[in-house]
């Protein structure tokens, strides 16, 4: 059993066995993370570049930790301190980096399709750490791992994704991954933040938070991207919170055991109340822990495909 592709660009087109393999491998790495010396020599001699054209705390630290736990050599790149400021093109940046003998590239960019573009420029294995509004596959994998650890199996589970679906790469990857694994998905949010013809993806769509709370076992609450707020897609932050904000009161009214996930960073008091984020409903910190294991699994599984051997 192995992954079909040398790269991880998204979860669209990744089949059930492959996702299960990544999640199972991640479970093995969880054991390593709990050891007194949480490090294995598996990627010794491999070099990974973390190419972040967009700000990130969690994802970048998580990838970097995963690389170090596997003993890979890591190089970090961020636009603010690089020649991108001097006007170097993406293609030149990546080709120069590759000339320094790189095995894998972890990339985040504000434009969708950049990871795919990079696969055409270089031989290294490319891992998408978020591209525009397209996909963020490792986030969806860690969400699924967190749910699977609670529920045992994803088949038949009801997962609602709440918030700004249209602009969310986390939603994009989660929809593909969850449907592939046999879960049922509901998208919940205001009409202005819902993609057109969302039903065609094979999901339920609702514009009332109550529907999601009545139906779902798991609620993946997306961050309201405050930087997009000026577009006027909803009147005010306060109104959004009144309609779609998760509060303890609402969760208790639901009279069901709902588990809350959030990809971070949280806007406390907007999509999620502070006391919900810190309550027993929330598995947000489990997600962060599982994220390192999932990224180790992806790095491990993609590191075997040496193009020289093909």
């Amino acid at each position, binding site marked *: 059993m*192995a992954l079909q592709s040398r790269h991880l660009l998204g979860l669209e087109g990744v089949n059930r066995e492959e996702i299960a393999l990544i999640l199972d491998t991640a479970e*093995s790495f969880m*054991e390593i993370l709990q050891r007194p010396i949480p490090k*294995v020599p*598996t990627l010794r*001699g491999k070099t990974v570049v973390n190419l972040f054209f967009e700000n990130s705390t969690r994802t970048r630290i998580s990838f970097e930790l995963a690389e170090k736990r596997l003993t890979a050599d890591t190089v970090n790149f961020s636009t603010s301190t690089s020649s991108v400021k001097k006007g170097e093109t993406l293609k030149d940046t990546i080709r120069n980096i590759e000339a320094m003998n790189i095995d894998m590239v972890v990339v985040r960019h504000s434009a969708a399709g950049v990871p795919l573009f990079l696969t055409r420029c270089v031989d290294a294995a490319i891992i998408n750490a978020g591209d525009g509004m397209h996909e963020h596959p490792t986030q969806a994998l860690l969400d699924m791992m967190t749910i699977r650890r609670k529920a045992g199996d994803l088949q038949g589970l009801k997962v609602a994704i709440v918030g700004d679906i249209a602009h969310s790469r986390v939603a994009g990857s989660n929809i593909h991954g969850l449907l592939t694994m046999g879960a049922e998905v509901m998208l919940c949010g205001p009409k202005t933040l819902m993609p057109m013809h969302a039903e065609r993806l094979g999901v339920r769509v609702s514009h009332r938070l109550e529907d999601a709370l009545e139906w779902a076992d798991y609620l993946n609450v997306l961050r309201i991207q405050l930087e997009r707020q000026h577009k006027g897609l909803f009147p005010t932050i306060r109104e959004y919170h009144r309609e779609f904000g998760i509060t303890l009161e609402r969760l208790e009214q639901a009279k069901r055991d709902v588990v809350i996930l959030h990809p971070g960073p949280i806007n406390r008091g907007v999509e999620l109340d502070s006391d919900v984020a810190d309550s027993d409903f929330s598995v947000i910190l489990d997600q962060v822990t599982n994220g390192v294991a999932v990224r180790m699994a992806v790095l*491990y599984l993609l590191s*075997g495909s040496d193009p020289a*051997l*093909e």
Partner: protein
Amino acid sequence: MVQKIKAKIVDAEGVERTIVRLAHEVIERNRGAKEIVVIGLRTRGVTIGRRLVEKIKAIENFDVPFGVLDVTLYRDDFRRRLKQPVIQISDIPFAIDEKHVILVDDVLYTGRTMRAALDALMDLGRPASVQVAVFVDRGHREMPIRADYVGKNIPTSVGEEIQVRLKQVDQEDCVLLVESPEEVE
């Protein structure tokens, strides 16, 4: 894939007697079973390790802690493979510090798996000693490693393979000498 069986070297009674003898040797060398822990290497070493622990319990009436180790991540051939092998969970639910660790595997051959296992153990703690118990030692070592407890010494050629079959997984207890798959046309 049908492999040609050249000989049955040990039968069911032989397997049982050998495990009993290994248990006695382990107890003798460590003056009892109080300070030892047994760790089986995936996958066949786990079955043999479990049986060894049962025998030690029957003799000493003491439950020796038992763990499972997967050494895939420590192997030295991963960079030469096209696809990564599937890794499984290591499960060692006790501290190995200051314990005498008995590492159990079915066959000792090049010594590379044991080398990987030693590295993995060092990441888990600082044992008082590490002792190696194998069911079959077939020679052809490529690393400076030797076994402390050997079930059977079976000299082989490189074109042959040893299969340790156990009733828990193969429905029978025996040791077979077979031809390597590459040799069979």
